[in-house]
């Protein structure tokens, strides 16, 4: 089964790094802006009630929203899931996840979502308290429930959990 999963967020929040870490288990400290979209495939196994399911995740690394060029809705079409990514050291990127979710829901109302509060590794050095960011995020997003992760592509923290959680949600939804 092939599933299209799009990663959406402001520019330089670490979408490419999350994919690189999840698919190739690498991290590059240098920032290279993404242009257009790059699709990377990763096969994952999802545990179901009776058997495991193999899923090919087609991860769409979409150029970040930089305030000038918005994320094209065409890139979101047909997505089974979306990962909204933000940078915990830039509060506006956390707030903007609401807009990205709204944009994606307009194109893919049935898609599953998960949120990544990324770059937790540099929170301390920027005098950011993760608890404050989470409180701000969960306070602003009434429907996030448990589908958010504090992640660090650099330290490989919660990256696998982020993707496999979304894959699991997609598969369970398909199997209903």
């Amino acid at each position, binding site marked *: 089964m*092939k*599933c*299209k999963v799009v990663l959406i967020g402001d*520019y*330089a929040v670490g979408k490419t790094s999350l994919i690189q870490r999840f698919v190739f288990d690498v991290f590059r400290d240098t*920032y*290279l*802006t*993404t*242009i*257009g*979209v*790059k*699709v990377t*495939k990763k096969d994952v196994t999802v545990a179901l009630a009776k058997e495991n399911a193999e899923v090919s995740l*087609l991860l769409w690394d979409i*150029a970040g929203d*930089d305030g000038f060029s918005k994320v*094209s809705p*065409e*890139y979101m*079409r*047909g*997505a*089974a899931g979306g990962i909204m990514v933000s940078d915990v050291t*830039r509060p506006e990127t956390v707030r903007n996840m609401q807009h990205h979710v709204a944009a994606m829901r307009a194109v893919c109302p049935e898609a599953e979502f998960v949120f990544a509060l990324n770059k937790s590794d540099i929170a301390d050095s*920027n*005098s950011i308290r993760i608890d404050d960011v989470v409180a701000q995020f969960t306070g602003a997003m009434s429907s996030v429930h448990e589908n958010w992760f504090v992640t660090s592509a650099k330290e490989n923290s919660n990256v696998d959990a982020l993707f496999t959680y979304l894959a699991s949600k997609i598969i369970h939804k398909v199997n209903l």
Partner: protein
Amino acid sequence: MKSVITEALFSRFGIFYAIINTDLQIIFIEDSLCRFLDIEWDGTGQDVFDVLPEMVGIEEDIRNVVSGRRSEYSLLGINRTLYEEIFFNIYVINSPGNAGEALVVIRDVTKESLYRQSIQQSRNEIELLQRQLMQKNLDLDKTNRDLLKSRDEQQVLNQVLEEKVHERTRQLEQSTELAMRLFHQTVNSLMFALEQRDSYTVGHQRRVSRLACAIARELGLGDEAVEGIRVAGYLHDIGKIYVPSEFLTKPGRLSEEEFNVIKAHPYVGFEILRDIEFPWPVASIVLQHHERIDGTGYPMGLEGDQIKFEAKILSVADVVEAMGTNRPYRISPGIDRALEEISKQKGIIYDAGIVDACIRLFREGIFSWTDE
């Protein structure tokens, strides 16, 4: 079949194409697209999603184009890392003359995309730096505000502290002033008590004190030492409270017993004063004021440096006053006689320097009993 011109144009502008059918199979017409996408061409059709996985999720849109329900579907800015970084646009275009088929046109946009990427990269980096700078400025502003607030609080605290210190200083000054007043009143009371009992000593202690202070100043002693000599002078005969007044005013020679009683007065004075916490060794000065440097004095027969310097000054002043002023019961031999006496005993029973200073005071008119 493409014309030569078309082929030249396609090659010039990086355009490749293939056919897609209703089974969503891609049929390559030539190998240029396969080369561009770095895939093997075996001449057969291939699953569109294997060749172009970017089309997963938009099957319905593609079918609509193939069937003619929609004229075109495009997906722009696809990036792949193959033999090199490539960017391309995909256009699925309905082919009106060929039912159940559509054209898949791939346009290589690598150059312009890399150019765009370079510009976008610079813009994003500048914006990130600007944001960091803004944040740093905000942090600096906050630090400045905190510092100003802290400085204001410190100023208020300092003002409160200064007021407290000022108040405590004022209280301490008042307290010190009161203590000094009480001290002088006590000294005067002690002196007065003796003078009330014994007319011999009326004014004697005050005058001895004045002369002793003048000698001390002449010798260059500091104010603090002079003040100690002043107090010791006021009280030096306080021990005479113990001596019957008839012994003190008796004309003629005293018996040995009577003289022994009188000789006890420095020690009695010492006993009276020893428990009073003066800032100077008043009790010791009083004890030693009848000692002589050759050891002939009393009560302990001390000599030389065993005797306090203040006591040596007091002893000279005591003798000069006793000889140099009249008493109700006797006529004074005169100040010249007194100075002659201490001059004769200079360096023998009296300290030479002290005697010289005392004589200088009188000879040069620096000191006079009538100065009071």
